[in-house]
């Protein structure tokens, strides 16, 4: 009753002014929605327009030439494509056991209670820590550790490099697949699980033969989202990857990712072709993460609607 009394106008009669206000309001809402569309399209077009010089000069060979030489104005993206792919996939592989374990634990073994809540909060806090702090910590703690590992196994003890970058990335992307996985596992209909239990299955067997197959596509979507995050991560990677524009020859070698080379060289790309090549890398990054995220979300949507 209170709400009604507060918002009812004094005279409840039709008025043109109110109608106009209403249309103005609805139009404003529409404008904001269109604004988002314009921003997304604008991002795409800006990237494309500024990549044109590079595309015209270097063509498709850009993607598999391995020399990045700003002095002779020769640009090849292969070192960065490799660097990005290797670090992201390695990070993904490292993170899988942990994200799945968290997802299964929170989704199946312990869905409520203080311990479950605690773990859930911890996972969300891991996602909240800013990337630059991860980078700083990795620089000071992980790099010396990796360096001593490298001396022990006999490779050049850089400390920084693809391996270290993948380690940091792995920690950073665990929360994404984990929280998505948890939601999906919780959504498995109890009827299915109870059916299996009543046939005498153990917990493990229910998980392996009922829950996981049921959530397979959803878990894949979670991995895709984690991958998308890893591909675009800039700061933590830039601080520990070694910043070398050469093809990495082992996972302990220093390298560069598309995002880190842009961060390093954007403010000084003084030739048109140089700048354009960097932006073309940005365009590739944008498109790849776009595809991965959209595909991932589509899979989730289809899964939730089943």
């Amino acid at each position, binding site marked *: 009753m209170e709400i009604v009394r507060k918002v009812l106008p004094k005279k409840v009669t039709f008025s043109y002014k109110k109608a106009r206000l209403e249309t103005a309001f609805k139009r404003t809402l529409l404008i904001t929605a269109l604004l988002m569309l314009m921003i997304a399209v604008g991002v795409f077009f800006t990237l494309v327009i500024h990549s044109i010089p590079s595309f015209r000069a270097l063509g498709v060979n850009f993607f598999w030439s391995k020399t990045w030489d700003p002095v002779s104005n020769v640009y090849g993206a292969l070192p960065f494509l490799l660097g990005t792919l290797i670090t992201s996939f390695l990070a993904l592989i490292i993170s899988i056991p942990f994200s799945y374990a968290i997802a299964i634990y929170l989704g199946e073994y312990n869905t409520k209670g203080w311990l479950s809540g605690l773990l859930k909060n911890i996972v969300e806090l891991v996602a909240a820590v800013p990337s630059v702090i991860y980078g700083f910590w990795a620089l000071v703690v992980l790099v010396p550790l990796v360096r001593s590992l490298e001396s022990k196994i006999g490779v050049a003890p850089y400390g920084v490099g693809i391996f270290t970058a993948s380690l940091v990335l792995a920690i950073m992307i665990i929360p994404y697949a984990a929280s998505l996985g948890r939601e999906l596992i919780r959504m498995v209909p109890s009827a299915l699980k109870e059916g299996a239990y009543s046939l005498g299955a153990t917990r493990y067997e229910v998980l392996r033969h009922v829950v996981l197959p049921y959530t397979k596509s959803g878990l894949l979507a979670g991995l895709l989202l984690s991958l998308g995050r890893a591909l675009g991560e800039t700061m933590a990677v830039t601080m520990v990857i070694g910043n070398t524009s050469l093809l990495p020859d082992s996972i302990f070698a220093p390298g560069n990712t598309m995002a880190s080379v842009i961060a390093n060289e954007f403010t000084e790309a003084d030739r048109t072709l140089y700048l354009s090549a960097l932006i073309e890398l940005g365009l590739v990054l944008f498109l790849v*993460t776009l595809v991965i995220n959209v595909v991932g979300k589509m899979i989730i949507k289809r899964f939730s609607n089943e």
Partner: protein
Amino acid sequence: MEKRLQFRLTKSKVFQWIIILFAFLITIPLIAIIFYVLKTGLSKISWHFLTHIPKPVGEIGGGIANALVGSLLIVMVAAIIAVPIGILCGIYLSENKSSKIAYYSRLAVDILQGTPSIVIGIVVYFWIVKPIGTFSALSGSIALAVMMLPIVIRSTEETLKLLPDTLKEAGLALGLPYHKVIMRVIVPCGMSGILSGVMLSVARIAGETAPLLFTAFGNPYLTANILKPMQSLPLLIFNYATSPYDEWHDLAWGASLLLLIWVLLLNITTKWITRKWKVQL
């Protein structure tokens, strides 16, 4: 028969313990990082640290006042830009579930949410910094606002979708104009969900560095002029952490601690709010 059953039961138990082990292993890096930042940063923080600007290279002393003020200003301006637009867009999307425009708009929001922050930095450089002719805190805020928008929009949309339609219909049935129903009935009801979306988005961008690299640029002086370059905590940490100066490393640790506390506080407060409102963010 017994042996087979025992085997299966043990396998199940072992699996459970493996899962528990791997699940809780994630606490190790988190605690390691928080502990390390706390340990190294705490000793660096002092009143002097909070109120002075950095000294010239190689001199000890100095503080991070310019980065603190800078971060607060840049984030505030970004929020001022992103929150109204985000909430309004979220309202639109929750009200128009099936229109064509809503579909494409939602797609655009998803795309922007997944876009790497460095790409946003590049784009805002071309949109704002180059035409205006100078780096500025405002361009940094705009870049951060673009990153905040998807989070605010999604959380607003999800929150409002949870509200029963009857609420809106009751208001309309009583003759309230549409905008009053939304702004005075629906939005206040969903306020805690919307608010937590806003706070999460602020927490997300407070620690962002990449978009600021080519927009806000950095400034060794304390300034409140958003049309000029400005320093911010993540930029300071990035620059000083990769430098060789020990004094700068100290400043970076103190700054990291402050940033971490700020971000974690925002996250914890958000959780506390959503507990009352069970929003799926």
